[in-house]
């Protein structure tokens, strides 16, 4: 059924108005961009080599002199040679403080312990993980723009399901910094399920086991006729292929009675360990070789030895799988299929362990490196309004409980983990002292009972509460989580009506004007280009809105009185006149006026949709 048709018969939209939307998998080890072209979602290759090119972009950024930088393969190849200025696996630092990074002293970077989020000193200055990630995203954005020879309308960016609010916010900041319009953040396993499910027309309960370079996710999803419902999700935001490299490197150093103390040596042994790990996917034995402080090191390693060294890491993933099944109150034999995602699932020991736990052979028929980006592209296309209506709906959950600090440093949970989003929930609190006029609100995320064991997301104060005896004030705190999984919190004293609110941006989240400043500095185009681009975007939006309104009038016009209809017609005429001009701000406000003017019409149409859902009838039958 079509609530929204983008075109009526005889009024096809201008082909140039098709919105180009991409899906981006911003991975720990490598990143990809995909888009729907000619009805098929596929990863976009770089311009290297005639006809083919490479779809993978290593997530590595090297800072050079004179504000130059290398991103991708060149940077990756320079890691051992210039380790301090070549940042790899930056995703593990997103939204983290130095104290959060277990084993950071083994990494070759000069970390700067900033409040909120750690940064790294390079020859080009101190860089935050957000800025480094933005370099990768901007590279992919340019790749897509070159492919289509046009501006992007927006992007869907994937994050591990287990990312907390701070990590999601950091990812969104990076995208904004790279000049991308973020249509949605979606969870990597959900994206994989979209790609997989649509490909195989599957129904039922699926487990997605996603072991990437630096993160591990396990999600249970129910697939049913285009609706992808996340039932439960869990995992470990600091466990991935990098840890397998590190474990093998540590073992090899011990075998060779050697140490790796310099930045160069640390990187060299990790690169060698990674190569040995990859070789062991095919071979039963290999040789780990590298140069440490000019001395060659060579350690033979068998697959059986590697499996034994890394078994504790695999066991950690299996424990997370059992926990998520417990959370969902599901038994492992209810799972109809297990989808493997992430390059690390190529390891034979991982496939064997997962197969054993579920009692079935995991599905590996899609490329585990590409499947997340492909799923994100399908969702991006749908969100941009290019897909057929009613084709795809993702119903995601929050991965970690959200709550407030109460007396004694305890957490009062407001929204439990695995609750479907969007969600809003209110809880009432009161004052504990006579005459108390302010209340501190401390928002935390996590499953532990003590505030100190959870992640602190935001603090704010509700002031101006009229003085009352203790326990008389009624303070309602409302949590709202949007479809991106991002939280905003509001507090209101019900008697007096005083209120305060925050969009939860952790203290290190970049302020909007900071982002605007950084955009000017380098990532976006020159100012004249910006104006032309804004005007083009505003006109596209005006055209979209006009077509959507006309289609709605054609489909449901009888819901309106003659006067209401004429008021909407007047707004349409007004918008058409202004859109012919050059003032993008004026066009934007005319679009907003049309949006406001059609609000009650939209409400009436939504109502009709609900009635249809309940009766199971098509809209047209009503």
């Amino acid at each position, binding site marked *: 059924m079509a*609530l*929204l048709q*983008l075109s009526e018969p005889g009024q096809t939209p201008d082909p140039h108005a098709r919105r180009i939307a991409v899906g981006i998998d911003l991975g720990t080890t490598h990143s990809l961009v995909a888009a729907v072209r000619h009805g098929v979602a596929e990863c976009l290759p770089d311009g290297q080599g005639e006809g083919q090119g490479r779809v993978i972009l290593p997530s590595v950024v090297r800072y050079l002199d004179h504000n130059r930088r290398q991103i991708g393969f060149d940077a990756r190849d320079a890691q051992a040679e210039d380790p301090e200025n070549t940042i790899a696996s930056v995703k593990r630092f997103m939204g983290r403080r130095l104290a959060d990074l277990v084993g950071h002293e083994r990494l070759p970077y000069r970390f700067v312990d900033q409040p909120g989020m750690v940064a790294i000193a390079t020859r080009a200055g101190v860089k935050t993980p957000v800025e480094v990630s933005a370099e990768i995203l901007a590279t992919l954005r340019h790749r897509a723009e070159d492919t289509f020879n046009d501006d992007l309308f927006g992007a869907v960016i994937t994050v591990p399901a287990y990312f907390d609010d701070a990590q999601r916010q950091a990812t969104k900041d990076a995208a904004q910094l790279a000049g991308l319009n973020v*249509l*949605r953040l979606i969870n990597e396993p959900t994206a994989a399920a979209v790609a997989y499910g649509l490909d195989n027309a599957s129904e039922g309960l699926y487990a997605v086991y996603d072991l990437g370079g630096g993160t591990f996710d396990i999600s249970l999803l129910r697939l*049913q006729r285009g*609706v992808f*419902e996340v039932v439960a999700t869990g995992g470990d935001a600091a466990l991935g292929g990098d840890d397998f490299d590190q474990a093998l490197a540590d073992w090899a150093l011990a075998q060779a009675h050697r140490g790796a103390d310099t930045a160069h040596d640390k990187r060299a042994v990790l690169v060698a360990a990674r190569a040995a790990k990859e070789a062991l996917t095919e071979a039963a034995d290999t040789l780990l070789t590298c140069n440490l402080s000019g001395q060659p090191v060579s350690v033979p390693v068998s697959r059986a030895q590697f499996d034994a060294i890394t078994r504790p890491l695999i066991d950690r993933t299996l*424990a997370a799988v*059992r*926990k998520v099944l*417990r959370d969902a109150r599901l038994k492992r034999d209810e799972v109809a299929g297990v989808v493997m995602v992430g390059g690390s699932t190529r390891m034979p020991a991982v496939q064997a362990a997962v197969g054993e736990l579920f009692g079935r052979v995991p599905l590996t028929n899609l490329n585990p490196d590409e499947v997340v980006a492909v799923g994100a592209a399908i969702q991006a296309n*749908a*969100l*941009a*309004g290019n897909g057929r*209506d*009613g084709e795809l*709906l*993702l*119903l995601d959950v929050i991965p970690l409980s959200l709550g407030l600090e109460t007396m004694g440093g305890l957490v009062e949970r407001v929204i439990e983990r695995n*609750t*479907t*989003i*969007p*969600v*809003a*929930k209110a809880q009432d609190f009161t004052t504990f002292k006579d005459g108390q006029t302010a209340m501190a609100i401390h928002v935390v995320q996590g499953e532990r009972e003590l505030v100190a064991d959870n992640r602190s997301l935001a603090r704010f104060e509700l002031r101006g509460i009229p003085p009352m005896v203790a326990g008389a004030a009624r303070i309602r705190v409302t949590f*709202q989580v*949007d*479809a991106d999984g991002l939280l905003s919190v509001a507090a209101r004293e019900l008697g007096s009506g005083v209120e305060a609110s925050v969009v939860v941006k952790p203290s290190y989240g970049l302020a909007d004007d900071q982002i605007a400043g950084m955009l000017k500095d380098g990532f976006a185009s020159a100012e004249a280009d910006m104006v032309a681009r804004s005007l083009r975007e505003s006109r596209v939006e005006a055209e*979209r*809105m006009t077509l*959507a309104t006309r289609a709605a009038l054609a489909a449901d016009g009888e819901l309106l009185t003659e006067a209401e209809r004429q008021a909407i017609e007047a707004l349409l005429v007004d918008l058409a006149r202004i859109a012919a001009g050059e003032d993008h701000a004026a066009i934007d406000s005319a*679009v*907003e006026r*049309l*949006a*406001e003017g*059609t*609000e009650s019409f*939209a*409400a*009436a149409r*939504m*109502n*009709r*949709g*609900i*009635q*249809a*859902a*309940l*009766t*199971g009838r098509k809209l047209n039958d*009503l």
Partner: protein
Amino acid sequence: MTPAMKLSDDDFTLFGLPQRHALDRSELDERWRALQSQVHPDRFTSEGAASQRLAMQWAVRVNEAYQRLKDPLKRGAYLCELRGAAIDADNNTAMPSAFLMQQMAWREALDDAADADAVRQLDDTVAADEHALLATLERTLDQQGEPRAAAQQVRALMFVARFRDDIHRRLDALDP
């Protein structure tokens, strides 16, 4: 055409289900997916900010009702409230002594449980008891029509649910 749906309609009306405790879970799930397919903000990405806000409100309301309806305990408590019997668990802590004795025995069993298998066994026992209590609650609400008695049963079930949460926390600790 049927009368307009409102955000303030009760959960059962919103989902087009009879106002009773007995419920077909697959029918509820089906309704939920159908409603979200109509109101989710992603369905209105081309329609401007006003529609987005409205869709967000509806999607939140539908999810709220779904969370309440799918949980038999929350559904029972909600029905009691709808029928004028407040749960008010904070001010109604009195429980029959046999029930309290049972709770204490379970708590001791949890403290004494030596390993994950023992905890799982206890969980099975408690789950069976919870199941029986829920069946009683359903009869009290749907056949006997006694919301006040049902509210007392809901309060007892809240004890059991909290205890099962403790069991699961213990299991999480034993299987890190």
